[in-house]
């Protein structure tokens, strides 16, 4: 009995570890290819590059405005994250703490917006921003990302867990809603704010369709758009394309390692509702 349990455990470990290696291999292969000059032109690069070099990265940053592109991605992601934190937190407070007529209906409308795919909005959004003269501007790329129904829902859930007795104590001390919001509720939902911040940043960093439609000039483009363009331009120079991929993965990887707890927790909680 013991022996079979032990044997089973070893097999299970072996299978799960082998699976993890297979899952990880594409990342490894991306890095190896980016370090193999001329990859893709002749043959498949070797698993361990013999004459590796940073040529592909040099090409990326000298021939293309890649530094600028990275700056764009970082800038847009930071603004999106900050604005989403503000708009989500204030709305969540209204739905969690303020009594007003039609609250349930308004909250329902907010939630319903989550079901509307961006694709449905592409044409009118494009026309609207064109009328405002915002096509091919950072602001045009940013505006539609400013409110997040997901963020509002997430923060409202967190705020509902904060005891209302704390509000009452603050009210007795003469605090109004803005003080309660800032000094009582917000400090108590830090983990949820962190989760939202990570998802907002990730969402902006990885977003594709809307930036593709709005940002036309090469110097305004974000990483995913530039990468898609790179693919058309360097059809067979896989080392350059993979170098671009590495550059776009690394910051997310750093954020993920740093904030893994909030990312996984956020996803896990989403499924438990």
């Amino acid at each position, binding site marked *: 009995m013991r022996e079979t349990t032990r044997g089973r455990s070893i097999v299970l470990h072996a299978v799960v570890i082998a699976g993890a290696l297979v899952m990880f291999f594409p990342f490894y292969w991306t890095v190896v290819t980016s370090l193999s000059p001329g990859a893709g032109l002749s043959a498949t690069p070797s698993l361990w590059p013999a004459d590796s070099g940073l040529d592909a990265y040099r090409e990326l940053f000298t021939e293309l405005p890649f530094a600028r592109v990275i700056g764009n991605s970082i800038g847009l992601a930071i603004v999106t994250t900050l604005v989403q934190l503000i708009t989500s937190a204030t709305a969540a407070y209204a739905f969690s703490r*303020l009594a007003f007529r039609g609250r349930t209906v308004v909250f329902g409308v907010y939630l319903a917006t989550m079901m509307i795919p961006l694709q449905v909005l592409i044409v009118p959004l494009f026309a609207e921003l064109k009328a405002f003269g915002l096509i091919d501007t950072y602001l045009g790329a940013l505006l539609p990302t400013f409110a997040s129904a997901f963020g509002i829902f997430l923060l409202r859930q967190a705020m509902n867990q904060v005891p209302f007795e704390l509000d009452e104590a603050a009210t007795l001390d003469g605090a109004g809603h803005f003080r309660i919001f800032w000094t009582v509720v917000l400090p108590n939902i830090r983990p949820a704010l962190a989760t939202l911040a990570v998802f907002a940043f990730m969402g902006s960093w990885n977003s594709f369709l809307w930036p593709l439609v709005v940002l036309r000039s090469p110097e305004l483009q974000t990483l995913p758009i530039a990468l898609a363009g790179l693919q058309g331009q360097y059809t067979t120079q896989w080392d350059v394309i993979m170098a671009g991929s590495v550059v776009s993965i690394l910051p997310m990887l750093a954020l993920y390692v740093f904030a893994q707890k909030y*990312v996984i927790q956020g996803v896990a909680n989403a499924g438990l509702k």
Partner: protein
Amino acid sequence: MSVITTPPAAIPIVAESPATRRALRPRRRRGIRHTLVVVAFLLPSALPLVFFVLGPMVAAAVISLTEWNLLAPAEWVGLDNYANLLGDPATWAVFAHTLYYIAGYLPLVYFGGLALALALNTALKGRSLLRGVYFLPVVTSWIVVAIVWRWLLNPSNGIVNATLATFGIDGPGWWTDPAWAMPSIILASAWKDLGFVMVILLAGLQAIDPELVDAAKVDGAGWWRRLVSVVMPLLSPSTFFVVVISLINGFQVFDQVYAMTGGGPGGATQVVVQQVYDLTFRYGSAGEASALSWLLFLVILAVTVMQVRGQRKWVNYA
């Protein structure tokens, strides 16, 4: 758009404390001051939602009733766009391709994610590291995923076909072959989302009371029996969530298709959203594109409502 921008099916009702009830008790006279406070808290989110979601949503419905190329003044055509779309075999083809994608993708990520979650839910060494590795592709952008897989599955010198060749197998043309293009996209997509599904199901498994499983064990139920009769029913809320989200995201599939095949070869992977994009920006038929996106929205809405209705039959909320 991120994967989790979708509402959970059931909104839990938080137990209300006396303080909660006092705070939310409707009062007759709250005065203009209170109204201003409410407006101040709602305005930052209401403005973008109205201007960039609800407004465009209505506008899309209006545009779908016109013929418009984004430049010249729009011309009113009534329901012609819808009639044209429904009579066009291309429309049925793009929906069929999208369903093909879903039919391949959903079982792969669900059963793959379930197997992993079950494995990681046991006393496994290095569990959190393994979970971290499996989750890694989730934080990678669809474009990177598509590009990397185009390279892995490159027919001439990609690593997959090179490996197959060492075993004497002549690998297929993958994304360059109409028959293999969709499977290539499905494979890449499943790789990206497997960790996401795994984490949701793992959280569901960890929420199951171990005593229930132990009780079944005492009653002599084997591993498979416990899985089917105890674990799966208790996991059904998580399963439901995964299915709802995957279907919504599946119908909206675009980024990876755009970057891997652009809808080709020969239109073999032309999905609904790729068609919306092409109609708008390649063929200048914004009206028809809006009609098609509304059709897509209605399909997603119908499928989601059907699932929420049908959940009573198989989803157990403890």
